[in-house]
Each structure stands twice: as structure tokens, then as C-alpha cells.
């Protein structure tokens, strides 16, 4: 394994870790998605079921080094979406649990830090794309 694979594998692992809690409790994640007040109610649960699995599949592809270009593109799209949604809620003053790594709403959310973290992950996505295997 070369050092060039590290950003790709790290990014993949982050996404795999992030999806576990959401896969285990899609209803709790659905409530978090609903709290973001971006989606119409009818789409909340389908997204809550689908998104964690998309994170898992993309994460697994990155870790395994299979279809890395596709997985990186999807992960970049997700990260851009997360940053946009978080920024929109920060602007609107809606303070809800992030739901990024778990469905636990037990800690006070820090949206600015979450956005910064997503931007760092975007850099990882860029590096992963730069050293892709496809």
C-alpha cells in the first residue's frame, strides 16, 4: 500500500464509521433529517434509509480501491450537499443535531466545526481523486 492510498482509505473509513449508527436506527436518523427542514415529509424516510447505505457502499469501494473515481464523485457530491444544507441552516438559525456520525442528539451541535470537518473531508476527496485507480 503506497502513501498515495492513505487519503482514499481514510475517507472510506470515515464514511463507513459515519453510516453505522444511521443504518442501525433509520427512524432516529429520519427524525434528524426531518429537523433539517429541507425535504418534504414524504421524502424524509426514503432518504433516511438510502443515504447511510450509499455512504457505506462508497466508503467500502474507496477502502477496497474499486471504482474509486465513481465513489469519490458520489462522496464529493454528498459532502457538497452536507455543507450546503448545514450552511443553509446556520444562516436560517436552525440549530439541530448534525446526524453526521450518529443519530444521538445528546450533544450541542457545533455547525461551524461540522462544516470545517466536511471541508477537510472534501480535501481528502480531492486527494483521493488525484491518486485514483480507475
Amino acid at each position, binding site marked *: 500500500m503506497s502513501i498515495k492510498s492513505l487519503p482514499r482509505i481514510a475517507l472510506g473509513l470515515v464514511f463507513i464509521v459515519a453510516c453505522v449508527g444511521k443504518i442501525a436506527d*433509520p427512524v432516529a436518523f429520519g427524525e434528524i433529517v426531518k429537523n433539517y*427542514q429541507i425535504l418534504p415529509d414524504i421524502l424524509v424516510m426514503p432518504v433516511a434509509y438510502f443515504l447511510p447505505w450509499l455512504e457505506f457502499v462508497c466508503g467500502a469501494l474507496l477502502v477496497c480501491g474499486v*471504482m474509486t473515481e465513481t*465513489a469519490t464523485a458520489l462522496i464529493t457530491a454528498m459532502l457538497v450537499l452536507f455543507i450546503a444544507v448545514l450552511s443553509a441552516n446556520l444562516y436560517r438559525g436552525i440549530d*439541530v443535531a448534525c446526524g453526521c456520525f450518529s443519530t444521538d*442528539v445528546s450533544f450541542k451541535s457545533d455547525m461551524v466545526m461540522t462544516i470545517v470537518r466536511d471541508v477537510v473531508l472534501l480535501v481528502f476527496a480531492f486527494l483521493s481523486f488525484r491518486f485514483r485507480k480507475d
Partner: protein
Amino acid sequence: MKVGKKLAFVFKILLVCAVSAGLAWSFNSLRPVPPITMQQSEIVEIDGVETLKIFDSNEAVFVDARSDTDFAMGHIPGAVNVPSWAIGIELDGLITSIPKDKMIVVYCDGLSCGKSNIVARKLRDKGFSDLAVYPDGLDGWLSLGRDLEGN
């Protein structure tokens, strides 16, 4: 990117999405206990008129789901503060004063605030059964011409 490559790329994106959707569907339909749906897990929502009626008849305990700082600045008179981030011993300590046989009305800032549902769900898990959420929250309360208690 040539057309052929573009098509292959789009095809791969769709493939990954389809595999994810397939996994999501099969995993969730194969669960030993299927998760309850959003509808079933939802807590009753009450409007301003009903909230005022309940408040004036002293039928319910009002629970403020905002932070302690926001609570101190102003809340519905007589409300108990249970911030949405409270868990464990802290949560247990906060809810000791709330009687389990009374109706609970949870509120936060207003329509743009999602904390009421979070607290209502936690209270339900703690054994409170008669729960309602007042989604209009403090914005609605003030627009009804009612006063707040606090600083």
C-alpha cells in the same frame, strides 16, 4: 471526457446508487423487528388555540426544549427546562419534577426549531405517555399576545 467515458461514468454512478438502494431495502425488510415508521413514532402536535386552552386550565406541564440560557431569558410561565442535548443523569435530574400522570406539552423557539420533537421522544422513552408538541413554540405564544416569564 469522451461520450463513451461519460456514459460509463453515469452508468457506474447509477450502479452504485442502485446497489445502495437494494442493500437498504433488503436490510430493512429483513430486520427481525422492522423499525417503526415515522408516522407511528410521531408525537401529537397541537395548535395555538388548543395550547392556550390547556395552559389556562392548568391541565399540562409545559417543557421548554431550548438551552438553559435561552430558557433563562424567557419562557412560557411555569415551564420546566429540558434542553434537547440533555442525556443520562442530567436528563433524569431534569425530569424528576415532571409528574408522569399529567399531560406534557413540549415547545421550543417556533416552526424552524426541531428540538421539541427530540425532547418529546426522550420523554416518551422515559415513560411519559401523554405527550404533545406545540410546534408554533415561543413565536406562536408571543403572537397570541401571551407574556413570558424570565429575564
